[in-house]
């Protein structure tokens, strides 16, 4: 399911939210701040909210 996820840039440390579906075909991603491709999905925003 496509939903907003928390992403983190492994290069510059930038945290941001972007749509993601772990099961769907992948698209090329880059950090909106530094353009690096070292970006990582942390968890879905919904899941993060449920936790806190």
């Amino acid at each position, binding site marked *: 399911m496509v939903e907003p996820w928390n992403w983190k840039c492994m*290069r510059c440390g930038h945290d941001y939210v972007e749509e993601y579906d772990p099961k769907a075909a992948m698209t090329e991603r880059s950090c909106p701040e530094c353009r690096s491709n070292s970006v990582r999905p942390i968890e879905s925003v919904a899941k993060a909210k449920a936790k806190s």
Partner: protein
Amino acid sequence: MMDAGRHPNIKLLTYSEVADVSGYVGNFKVTVRQKARYVDATLCNACGECEKVCPATHPDEFQMGLSTRRAVYLPFPQAVPSAYLLDMETCLGTNPIACGKCAEVCEKQAIDYDDQDELTVIEVGAIVVATGMDVYDPTALDEYGYTRYENVITSMEFERLICAGGPTIGHLIRPSDQKTPMRIGFIQCVGSRSLRDGAGYCSNICCMNTVKDTLLIRDHYPAAECSVFYIDIRAFGKGFEDLYDKSREAGVKYIRGIPGEISEIDGGNLRLIVENTTEQRMETHEFDMIVLSVGVRPRSDDASIRRLLTLSTTAEGWLMESHPKLKPVDAPTKGVYIAGCTESPKDVKDSVTQAGAAAARVGALLNAGKVTVESITCHIDQEICNACGLCVDICPYGALSADKKAKIKASVVDAACAGCGTCGATCPQGAITMRHFTDAQIIAQVDALLAEKSEEKVIVFACNWCSYAGGDTAGISRMQYAASCRLIRTMCSGRIDEDFVLRAFREGAPVVLVSGCHFADCHYIDANRQTVKRLYRLWKYLEKRDIRPERLQLEWISAAEGPKFQKTMNQMEELRQTVTAEEIAHTVEVLAKEEEKKRARRAKQAQQRQSAETEVPAG
């Protein structure tokens, strides 16, 4: 054109598109979709009776919209094939009540309203990509007022206006009042050599095209005045300078400076303001008509061909060749060659030359009669394979087969395997060996590179086609960068096993970079998607073990991106300097323990397997 149409060895498939490509060098299977023409080209004798009765009109594409054509039309008088077609979107309707006039008058009964797209499968050994380019549309350049001022036209529109086969039968007139313009201005580099709208390159053809245009004007209308506004006149080819001299001798004024603004004054005339950089002064000029000498752009509609043939482009969008000097017409995909403007902007002569080169390269392949494929394919150890089928799911080529339920172990079709190695990195059992890129070979490289002073080094895994080639591009351009990086080449980043990365960290690497092709450029269709999944898993794995995940980096670098390669290597060095000796020691210790655990687990599994086999009763 006509020769190509009647050559016994050439089969023309016009109004057609490549829908699918499968296979490999020497053995491609191509599906071509021939769009419905609604006029049978084999019956049509281009008598033109249909056109005379057709009531529906549409701007004529061939004449740059300067005149109209009918819904049923011949693209242009010399069209090959010389056959009409029916543009259904313009057609009033095929229902006889709506219209149906063309079918009524067609003696040959060539018109078929029920015509449908047709798919043809052809088998070929080689493919030449000559998809051409787009002409720049200057509407976005507000200062020139194209489309706002009627008498500002593009050089393509000028071609049709001066052409005897054009809408004015070669009489040069201006759009606003159909009078012959006697003061004509040309503006060069429209859509070229300007980063403002994303094209920093020179479009190659526009200078000489304008020189030619001025000579045509002076020839047809000796009293007409022409002025050309330019940055440089690039008259570099054989006979070009001579032509430029002729133009100047004919009285054409060349003014160095690119106009800042055009405005319309009385009666459709135009005023232009320019900084004359030779005289160092601002000037105002008035013209009856202004021609924008537009540049060229990569084709906007050939993405599907690029994808089907796994071709990559430069940052600007021109197709990449295998090597800029030594293999200028070979595409990186074997058996595919490139010619013409799809590779870069070029004129007719250069297009013909390059096409000849491409044809010679294809000829060399076809005449050889056989093709030898590099022996880098995968091999499956039937003893170890447990038929889990993971490799089958991820193979981009469908070269593997297995059946989990029926316990049929994996097997590979060698001819279909391209050797990306993604299956080798995926197999949880270690049953797959990649010929020439084995685990042992790659791990030996990791170990050798980290044998001494490992703390000073950055291990970079690079794919053959893009990131490694990007490094070559940086080298060819002499881009200097930090010397800490140590590259290990694999065919695809999909080959990079999680174990390789962990091995590097275990051997004391402060930073590991995994690099590959941009998604659109992946030479193994979509194998590098698996690379990303592995990185996600590795980041999690490292984080869980209190190892800073940022020490593992990912970057897509195309073969053309020398500057990105340089920047990335410098960033890796910066990152390396943040990694402390304690951090490395901790990583080495943690990962060594993990390795021990894994080894114990494997040994146990092997033992279980062995005892299970011995317990199976014979017969």
